[in-house]
């Protein structure tokens, strides 16, 4: 970490989202979808949330922005605190100032007839004055690299472009935290890569905390500061990426451990020890070269 002013140091240890023993059951469901989740997300980090399908990742995201319990109802126990506010005591629109949620399917979260109008939607709801709104919309379009699409109808864009519009929509509201629920599952690898780069830039330049629900760990892990793995409604692994990916448990649950980390493990089983745990192929090749030169 770069040495910063005391303020940034203080910020870095501040929890922006915290859940304590969170138990949630959807209305009408027999089984709880979340069974005692306690996680802490620190301000300014990029967190990858992963785990097998149906383990409760989306449900947890909905708890972070108040869709649970305010939109979905159901039974909630334990505590969720977001930017100092208890989620159960807030409305969804109050929370929207702090938390932005980007959904999996880009098509159904864009509903206006032009990109800029869609990006402005949240600001219109918050009654932001028009001059300010125009500035913020332009800024959000620029940050996501889609200025040239501003007048196009969103539904005629490619999936990758649509997902960037969806990010701009949330970004324009200047949230502290941006949650992206499997934003790349409808995209090709190139489109996915672009999304990750945009997300990373938002984090590095603006200090927005990112929570990324993702299966494509090969592409995404190099950006992560923190990885949380869930299984059957519980958090089973929580820590910095290398430790989590290298653990035996991650592999047993069926997390798509990055190939570079998997390579490290196989080499170790065969008696070759690299000097560190790689997460990306660049790191792996560097460590491999080290070993090859040593021999």
């Amino acid at each position: 970490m770069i040495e910063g002013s005391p303020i940034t140091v203080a910020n870095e240890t501040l929890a922006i989202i915290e859940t304590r023993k969170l138990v949630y059951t959807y209305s009408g469901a027999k089984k709880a979808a979340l069974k005692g989740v306690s996680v802490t997300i620190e301000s300014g980090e990029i967190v990858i949330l992963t785990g097998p399908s149906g383990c409760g990742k989306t449900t947890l995201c909905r708890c972070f922005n108040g869709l649970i319990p305010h939109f979905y109802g159901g039974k909630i126990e334990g505590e969720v605190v977001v930017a100092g506010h208890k989620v159960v005591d807030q409305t969804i629109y109050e929370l929207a100032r702090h938390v932005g949620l980007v959904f999996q399917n880009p098509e159904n979260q864009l509903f206006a007839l032009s990109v800029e109008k869609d990006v402005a939607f949240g600001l219109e709801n918050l009654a932001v004055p028009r001059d300010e709104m125009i500035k913020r919309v332009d800024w959000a379009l620029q940050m996501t690299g889609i200025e040239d699409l501003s007048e196009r109808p969103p539904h005629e864009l490619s999936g990758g472009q649509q997902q960037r519009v969806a990010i701009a929509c949330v970004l324009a509201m200047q949230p502290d935290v941006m949650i992206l629920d499997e934003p790349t599952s409808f995209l090709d690898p190139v489109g996915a890569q672009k999304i990750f780069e945009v997300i990373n830039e938002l984090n590095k330049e603006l200090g927005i905390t990112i929570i990324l629900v993702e299966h494509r760990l090969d592409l995404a892990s190099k950006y992560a500061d923190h990885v949380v793995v869930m299984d059957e409604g519980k958090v089973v692994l929580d820590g910095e990426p290398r430790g989590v990916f290298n653990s035996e448990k991650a592999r047993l649950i069926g997390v798509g451990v990055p190939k570079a980390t998997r390579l490290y493990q196989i080499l170790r089983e065969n008696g070759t020890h690299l000097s560190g745990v790689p997460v990306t192929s660049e790191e792996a090749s560097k460590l491999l070269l080290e070993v090859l030169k040593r021999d």
Partner: protein
Amino acid sequence: MSMFEGFRFRRVSSVVHLLDPRAKFFFVCVLFITAILNSKLPPLILLFFVPLPFVLMAGVQREWIRSMRGALFFAFIIFLFNFLFTYLYTEYPQVPSAPLLERSIAMTLRFLVLVESFSVFFLTTSPDHLGLALEQSHIPYEFCFAFTTAVRFVPVLAEEAQTIMDAQKARGLELERGNFLKRVRNYIPILIPLIVGAIRRSLELAEAMESRAWGASEKRTNLYVLKLKRNDYLLVLISVLMLILAVYVWLYIPIPSLTILLSF
């Protein structure tokens, strides 16, 4: 898809497209009223030509001709009904008399003028603008939002319907088989997935809207604002003059029918 082509507004900009939808709507209403006030053929012929310069200026001749062709069938029915009913229920002397024919043509033309003016309006007004105009006319925002969202999702649903239809046909569903009742029943395997899909879609939509602070404030602001410009005032002025003229003529000047004019 062809059935829904008409819903897709093609983005073109011309003087007419740039006019304020409220001014255009006022103009269309005046045309409408003028057409209703007149039942004689000569003024209706004149009225038929009034929207034509707008069609040409907007460059939507092809679309306009297509929509008029669509109206032709109804026009024919209207003509037939007028002709038959006035013949049966009034005591005109000769059977297909000239006044009777003229009256039926006039009624048909009146219908065509109405269709014509509305089609010019819709062909040159983007749904975006229309929604905005509704909003600024103090119509509740929920309604305006529903309108623009419907415009946005109709082509999507149409596409989905086509996909489902193809999928079900590929599994051996035969749509054009059997009597009328059977045929209606054939559409059930298409309607159910379509409805289920639409409900899922609308839930996701609601979720996305909520997450973007829907309902946060009583008084929303708007990215776009409609402002009347010089051309709009001009159009409103023309419309008002036309309306005054139409009402004046209707009250004080009896217009002769074409048959009478020609018999001089």
